[in-house]
C-alpha cells in the first residue's frame, strides 16, 4: 500500500527542514512535477503503528494568500492544484512556539481546508528558555486538532510528535482524487481575532522578546556597524575560500598526479593509457581539486542561513539593492549564486515581484559561482605572484576578491540598466521576518553540506567525466595528426578562432571553451587535457606552470575577464529557462553575457598590452 502523504507547512525558519531531516533521516528525494517548476523534497518514514508516511517539505508560508512563486507552490501543493498531484492526505503545521500569538492564524487557515492535521509547536526549548509557558491541552481543545510541542533538532524532542502520528495516521484517508480543494474564503481580520483569543487563553506567561537576539541586533543591525560587519564577513568568507583550502587542494593535486604517474607506470604505453591518464585522471582530477573551496563556501552560506544572519544581511542590503533596482530579498539568491547560480536562480522564487525576480535571475550568473573558482585559482596561481601586501593580505587572495567584486559591480550595473529598460515594473515590498539567532544544528549542517558536495561530485563523476573523455577523443584523433590544429578539436577551435583572436585568445583556449559549455570548471580540465595531450611527457610540473610558459600575461588576464561574464554553463541556462518559462529571456541572458564577456576580455587584453604587461 502506498504511503500516506503528509505536507509540512509553516513559516520560513519555523524548523521545517530540521523536522524533515529528523523524521526521515534526511533521505530525501527531490520530486519534479511535470509542467510546473516545482521541486519539493519528500522522504518516507514509518510510525510505531506501522503506517508509512511520505513527508513533503514545502517552502515557508504565512498563510494562503501566496505572494511569491515559492509560496504559490506551497499553497498549490496543499490545495491539490499542482497538475497531476493529489492534495496531501494530512497537514503538519509547524509554528515557532515562541511566536504562537503572531502566527496562530495560519493554523486556522489550514484547518479551513478540512484536512486532518497536527499542529507542532516547535523550538519549545527556546521558548521555554525565554520563559514562555503554554497550556497545550487548552490550545488543543480550542483548536479542535491535535497539538504537540517539539524540539525538532533532537530525537527525544520529536518523540511526542511520533507518538501522536502513530495514533492519528490510521484515521487518515488516502486521497487519490485530483480534484483541487477549495481555497477557503476567510476574513483575515476575524480569523486573527479568533487566533489571538485562543493564543491568549492558552498562554500562561508570555515574556518579552528574546534578549540575546536584541543585544546582538543592536550591533549587527546598527546603521553604521552593521554594513561593516557584513563586509567583514564576506571578506573573511572569500579569504577563507582562498587560503584555508590551499593545503587540502595541494593534497588532492598531489594525489591526482601520483595516480596518473602510477597508472602510467603500470599500464603499457598507448591509446588506453593516454585515455585514462591524460583524459580521465587529468580532466576529472583538475576539477575535484576544488572540492575544499566548495566545502568552505557552502559552510559559510549554510551557517549564515541557519544562524539567522542571512535575513539580517538582506535587511542591511535592501536600501542598496533598491537603489540598483532590486530588492533586499534578492541578496540571498545572489549570495547563493556565489556557490552555484542554479540554486540561486531557483531561490529567486522567494521574490514576490515578477520583474524583480526576472532581474535577479538575469544577473545571478554574474555572481562568481564555485565552478569559476577552478578557473580563477588556476590563473591566479600561474600568473599572480604569491606576495603579501600591507603586511597581512595575500596578493592572490586580493586579486580573487577583485574578481568577485568585478562580478558584483557588473551585476549592479546590469540590474540598474535592466530595471530602467526591459524589466521595468511596479513597486515592490520587503515584509520579511527576522528569526531569533540560533546555534546551527550540526546534523542539519552536515546533511546540507553533504547534499551540495554530493551534487558537485556527481557532476565531476558524470558530466565532467564524459566531457573529459570526449575532449580526449577530439584532441587525440585523427591519429598521427601533426599538432593540435589538425585534430578534430583543433578544427572546431579554428572556426571560433577568428572571433576570439581579437581578444587575445589562442587556439587552445578556443578549444577549452567549447567543452566549458557543459560546465564552466570543465574549461580547466579541458586545458589540462589539451596541454597534456600536446605536451606529452615533459609537463609533469602541473598545469599552472605549463600555462605560465604558454600564455602571455595579457592573455591570462583577458581569460580571467572573460570568466567574470562567461555565459557558458548549460545547466544554468536550463534553470533560467525553467524558472522564467521563456526562451526569449534565456536567449537574452546568453547573448548579453556573451557580449559582455567578449568586450571585457578584449578591453582587458588590449589595455594590458598597452600597459606593457
Amino acid at each position, binding site marked *: 500500500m502506498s504511503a500516506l502523504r503528509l505536507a509540512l507547512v509553516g513559516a520560513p525558519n519555523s524548523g521545517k527542514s530540521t523536522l524533515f531531516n529528523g523524521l526521515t533521516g534526511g533521505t530525501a528525494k527531490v520530486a519534479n512535477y511535470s509542467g510546473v517548476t516545482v521541486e519539493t523534497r519528500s522522504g518516507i518514514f514509518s510510525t510505531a503503528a506501522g503506517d508509512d508516511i511520505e513527508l513533503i517539505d514545502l517552502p515557508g508560508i*504565512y*498563510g494562503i*494568500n501566496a505572494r511569491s512563486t515559492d509560496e504559490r507552490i506551497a499553497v498549490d501543493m496543499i490545495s491539490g492544484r499542482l497538475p497531476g498531484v493529489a492534495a496531501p492526505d494530512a497537514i503538519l503545521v509547524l509554528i515557532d512556539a515562541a511566536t504562537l*500569538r*503572531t502566527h496562530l492564524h495560519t493554523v486556522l487557515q489550514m484547518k479551513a481546508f478540512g484536512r486532518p492535521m497536527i499542529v507542532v509547536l516547535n523550538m519549545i526549548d527556546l521558548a521555554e528558555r525565554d520563559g514562555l509557558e503554554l497550556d497545550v491541552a487548552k490550545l488543543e481543545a480550542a483548536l479542535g486538532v491535535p497539538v504537540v510541542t517539539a524540539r525538532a533538532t533532537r530525537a527525544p524532542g520529536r518523540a511526542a510528535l511520533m507518538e501522536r502520528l502513530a495514533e492519528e495516521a490510521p484515521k487518515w484517508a488516502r486521497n487519490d482524487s485530483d480534484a483541487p480543494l477549495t481555497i477557503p474564503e476567510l476574513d483575515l481580520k476575524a480569523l486573527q481575532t479568533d487566533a489571538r483569543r485562543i493564543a491568549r487563553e492558552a498562554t500562561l506567561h508570555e515574556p518579552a522578546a528574546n534578549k540575546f537576539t536584541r543585544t546582538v541586533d543592536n550591533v549587527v543591525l546598527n*546603521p553604521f556597524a552593521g554594513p561593516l560587519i557584513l563586509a567583514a564577513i564576506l571578506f573573511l568568507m572569500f579569504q577563507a575560500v582562498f587560503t584555508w583550502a590551499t593545503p587540502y587542494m595541494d593534497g588532492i593535486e598531489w594525489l591526482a598526479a601520483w595516480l596518473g604517474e602510477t597508472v602510467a607506470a603500470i599500464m603499457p604505453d598507448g591509446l588506453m593509457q593516454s585515455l585514462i591518464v591524460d583524459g580521465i585522471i587529468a580532466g576529472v582530477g583538475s576539477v575535484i581539486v576544488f572540492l575544499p573551496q566548495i566545502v568552505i563556501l557552502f559552510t559559510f552560506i549554510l551557517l549564515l542561513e541557519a544562524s539567522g544572519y542571512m535575513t539580517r544581511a538582506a535587511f542591511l542590503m535592501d536600501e542598496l539593492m*533598491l537603489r540598483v533596482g532590486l530588492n533586499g530579498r534578492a541578496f540571498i539568491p545572489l549570495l547563493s549564486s556565489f556557490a552555484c547560480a542554479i540554486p540561486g536562480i531557483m531561490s529567486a522564487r522567494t521574490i514576490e515581484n515578477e520583474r524583480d525576480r526576472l532581474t535577479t535571475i538575469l544577473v545571478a550568473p554574474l555572481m562568481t559561482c564555485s565552478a569559476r573558482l577552478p578557473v580563477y585559482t588556476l590563473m591566479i596561481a600561474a600568473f599572480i605572484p604569491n606576495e603579501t601586501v600591507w603586511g597581512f593580505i595575500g596578493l592572490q587572495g586580493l586579486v580573487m576578491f577583485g574578481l568577485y567584486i568585478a562580478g558584483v559591480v557588473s551585476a549592479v550595473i546590469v540590474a540598474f540598466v535592466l530595471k530602467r529598460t526591459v524589466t521595468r515594473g511596479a513597486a515592490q515590498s520587503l*515584509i520579511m521576518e527576522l528569526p531569533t539567532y540560533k546555534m546551527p544544528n550540526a546534523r542539519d549542517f552536515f546533511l546540507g553540506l553533504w547534499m551540495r558536495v554530493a551534487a558537485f561530485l556527481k557532476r565531476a563523476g558524470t558530466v565532467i567525466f564524459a566531457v573529459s573523455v570526449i575532449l580526449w577523443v577530439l584532441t587525440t584523433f585523427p591519429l598521427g595528426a601533426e599538432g593540435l590544429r589538425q585534430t578534430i578539436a583543433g578544427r572546431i577551435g579554428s572556426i571560433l578562432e577568428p572571433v576570439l583572436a581579437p581578444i587575445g585568445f589562442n587556439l587552445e583556449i578556443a578549444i577549452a571553451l567549447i567543452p566549458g559549455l557543459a560546465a564552466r570548471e570543465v574549461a580547466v580540465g579541458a586545458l589540462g587535457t589539451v596541454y597534456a595531450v600536446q605536451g606529452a611527457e615533459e609537463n609533469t610540473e602541473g598545469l599552472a606552470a605549463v600555462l605560465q610558459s604558454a600564455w602571455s600575461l595579457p592573455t591570462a588576464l583577458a581569460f580571467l575577464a572573460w570568466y567574470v561574464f562567461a555565459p557558458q554553463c548549460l545547466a544554468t541556462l536550463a534553470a533560467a529557462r525553467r524558472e522564467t518559462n521563456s526562451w526569449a529571456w534565456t536567449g537574452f541572458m546568453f547573448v548579453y553575457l556573451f557580449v559582455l564577456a567578449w568586450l571585457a576580455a578584449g578591453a582587458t587584453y588590449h589595455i594590458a598590452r598597452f600597459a606593457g604587461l
Partner: protein
Amino acid sequence: MGMTLEELARGQIARVIGFRSEDSGLEPKLREIGFAEDDEVEIVHFGPLMARPVCVRLNRTLIALRRNEAAAIEVSIG
C-alpha cells in the same frame, strides 16, 4: 487622523489600531505575516543609509518592512 508606525521614534512602543493603504493588497500581506489590531509594535532599527527599510518588533517577533509599508499601519501610543 491617527499616527502610523512609520512616524514612531525608535524605541517608542505603540499598539496597532488598523490599516490604511492605497494598495489593497498590502493589508492582507501585513496581516498574514502577523500584524493585527491590538498588537504591540516598536521600531527597533533603521536600515543603513537613512534607508527605507525599518526593523519592527511585533510582539515577540522582528519584521523588516519598508517605510511605505510601515505607513500603512495605524498605531496609537500608550
